[in-house]
């Protein structure tokens, strides 16, 4: 018997763009919810028009980032400025349990799709608005992406080398911080709705959730007045602790030695060279005091090994270590293979491409990514027929009206 999915029966409509909103719907879809992703051909999602594209050929259905965040959804194009388009949208609102939107503040209101309005159509709807700064406030009008929000949240200032300016984590970092929290709060809201009969509106600021990922540094400032700055890979409680260059071109490993027992094991692995007996490295405190020198010596050993060798040798004796993975390494990673982290799915236009599975597994309701992301408007007919129950005539009329663009 086919095992059930945990969110089977749940219905989601999203008017989302870029990463955060779509990622929320994606995971809910992986877990069994029926998710309808609404977009318009008139103003394609940014992630549909940026690199990388499959085989380097630009195309609206070929973009990797859009595909990543929109698997397990039905895709529909709808022109919300068209009177027929907005009618269809209202029917979807009536149908859905959850409505997710991630536009700039004020956009959905212009289409009469703000919470007050959708509540008229569906009184117990759960609606999430997520944007960079939140719906209200002096900076709500800020136009930007997660890459700017990450800089504003403080990630760049603290990420880099002590002797130079901020570098920051790659990419739109606040985009990858928020979805998890939003999935949790949406599902909790559904449970609450079941108990109370009440829906609700969730106003989410990606900047605000972002600050939580720097929480301890914020408390260090608000209680100790210390302004965090860049420390490269250093960690107060461990040495050696860092990223070390290995054999090969731009190949790196990490090593984290957290106590004396691990230090002894580390020294054994590297063959107990005389310098490891030097009093400058005899205790954690000594190693911290002489860390620049220590790192240089550690690297003189790692340079003779591939990152895979270092990882394997260190892990065998209980020292935390890993390769610093490239894109290719991720796909070849033995643990990911064992977990089936990447799953090949057949996409309607670009064929088989890998999709990430969720980072969790359930024992009784196993779920994984099942359906590749939709091409623009791929499921217009399916949604009109099977979800909204339109007749052929109605559907044809809708196409002719131009509302499905």
């Amino acid at each position, binding site marked *: 018997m086919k095992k059930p999915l945990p969110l089977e*029966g*749940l219905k989601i409509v999203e008017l989302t763009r870029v990463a955060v909103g779509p990622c929320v719907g994606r995971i809910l879809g992986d*877990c069994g919810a029926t998710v309808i992703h609404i977009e318009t051909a008139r103003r394609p999602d940014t992630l549909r028009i940026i*690199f990388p594209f499959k085989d380097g050929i630009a195309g609206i259905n070929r973009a*990797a980032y859009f595909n990543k965040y929109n698997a397990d959804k039905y895709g529909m194009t709808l022109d919300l400025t068209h009177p027929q388009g907005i009618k269809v949208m209202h029917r979807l609102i009536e149908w859905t349990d959850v409505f997710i939107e991630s536009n700039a503040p004020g956009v959905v209101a212009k289409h009469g799709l703000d919470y007050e309005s959708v509540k008229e159509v569906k009184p117990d709807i759960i609606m999430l608005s997520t944007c960079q700064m939140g719906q*209200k*406030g*002096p900076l709500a009008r800020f*136009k*930007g992406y997660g*890459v*700017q929000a990450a*800089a*504003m*949240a*403080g*990630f760049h*200032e603290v990420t*880099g080398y002590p002797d130079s*300016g901020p570098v920051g*984590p*790659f990419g739109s970092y606040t985009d*990858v*911080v928020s979805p998890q929290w939003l999935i949790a709060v949406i*599902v909790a809201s559904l449970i*609450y709705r079941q108990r*109370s009969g009440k829906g609700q509106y969730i*106003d*989410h*600021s990606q900047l*605000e*959730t972002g600050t939580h990922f720097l*929480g*301890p*540094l914020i*408390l*260090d400032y*608000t*209680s100790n007045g210390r302004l*965090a700055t860049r420390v*490269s890979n*250093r960690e107060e*409680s*461990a040495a050696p602790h860092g*990223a070390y260059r290995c054999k090969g071109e731009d190949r790196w*490993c*990490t090593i984290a030695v*957290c106590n004396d027992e691990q230090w002894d094991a580390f020294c054994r692995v590297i063959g107990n060279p005389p310098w490891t007996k030097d009093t400058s490295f005899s205790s954690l405190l000594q190693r911290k005091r002489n860390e620049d020198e220590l790192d240089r010596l550690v690297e003189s050993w790692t340079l003779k090994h591939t990152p895979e060798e270092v990882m394997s040798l260190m892990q065998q004796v209980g*020292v*935390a270590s890993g390769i*610093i993975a490239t*894109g290719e390494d*991720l796909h070849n990673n033995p643990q990911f293979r*064992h977990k089936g982290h*990447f799953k090949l799915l057949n996409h309607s236009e670009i064929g088989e491409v890998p999709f990430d599975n969720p*980072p*969790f*597994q359930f*024992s009784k*309701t196993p779920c994984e990514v099942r359906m590749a992301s939709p091409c623009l408007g791929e499921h217009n007919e399916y949604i009109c027929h099977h979800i909204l129950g339109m007749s052929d005539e109605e559907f044809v009329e809708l196409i002719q009206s131009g509302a499905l663009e």
Partner: protein
Amino acid sequence: MDNLLDSVRVLDLTDEKGLLCGRILGDMGADVVIVEPPSGNSARRRGPFYQDIPHHERSLFWFFLNTNKRSITLNLKSAGGIELFKELVKTADFVIQSFPPQYMSKLGLDYDVLSKLNPKLVMTSITPFGIDGPYANYKGTDIVIMGLGGLSYISGEPTREPIRIPVPQSCFHTGSWAAAASMIAFYHQQMTGEGQSVEVSMQQSATWATYATQEWWSYAGMNLKREGTWRQIGTARMQILFPCKDGHVMMFLIGGAAAASGQNLFIKWMDAEGMCPDWLRDFDFSELDVSTTSQDFFDRLSDALAGFIATKKKGELFDWALQNTLFLAPVNNIRDLLENPQLKARNFWIDVEHTELGTSITYPGPFAVLTETPIKKQKRAPLIGEHNMEIYQGELGLSRDDLVVLKQGGVI
């Protein structure tokens, strides 16, 4: 007002890898009981510390991850501890744990055992790599996990070592993913009455912390590299981080109609202050196609922009950007963040009383604003075993004498 998770009980057995999970559930109103060994949770030994005095009741790291929780001490390595834990499981909705794989089995507290006591239980296990597979018994600290997840390789300067964010992001990603996964399993439980076990992998969570490396490889056959303060845009690289008078700003230039207003006006601003080179003066960004622009153009543009930006403060650049729709943002430090007008206007920051320290400390506030069931206001993290009496006496009905015996027996 109600909370989202009123009357939901969570038993939190995690260390730093998973503490955020229980905190998020607590933020949503669950009654989260952190079960600590009598010596205290290991995260209490992690800095920074209040007033830099290292002490298990002064860890700011611990404070941040344990608001809205209650604490009991319990020695799970003792028969009495196991017995009490099983009693607690009977009325719990969640057990969250982050011990090494098989550790709970060795204690006789794995899902098979606990689910017999409470079939509705959702048990969430957080491990570095998963409970099985070739890496299952490997050690994973934050730097190791972030490296294996793919974000580190592309973060940093091209000629220097890959870097990480100096707060254990892998723990926070995993903790928040664990909260999401736990809620999904709980939804199923609420619908069907069936509990289950949930497994969350730090390595997989860390891979969700980037959209780039796996995609560049599988779509374009290319390993993305570190680019420092520049970013690959199409065929060339563009500078995105610029030093200014009092710090740095981030600017992303785009082409096409959307770019015209803000970027063209910015050039005019530069020109008005006599800082626009001749070649740039009449440039129209709406005609720029960033995917085919030459490196030489971006290099010359960078020189011109950098010279001008260096004469301005991040606040004045950002104000201008807001008024003129330019993709520019300040690189905030933590002080800037605390003074950010948006966060202030939304009353984001909250002061949490720490009576024992005779002070209150400002914390990041609710992660979302809800109309019916607001995220719960933070209450300071519990002291070690602060709620032993409340729970063992008040709920399990043990007597004071029992507690004295358990304390002396090293059970609580």
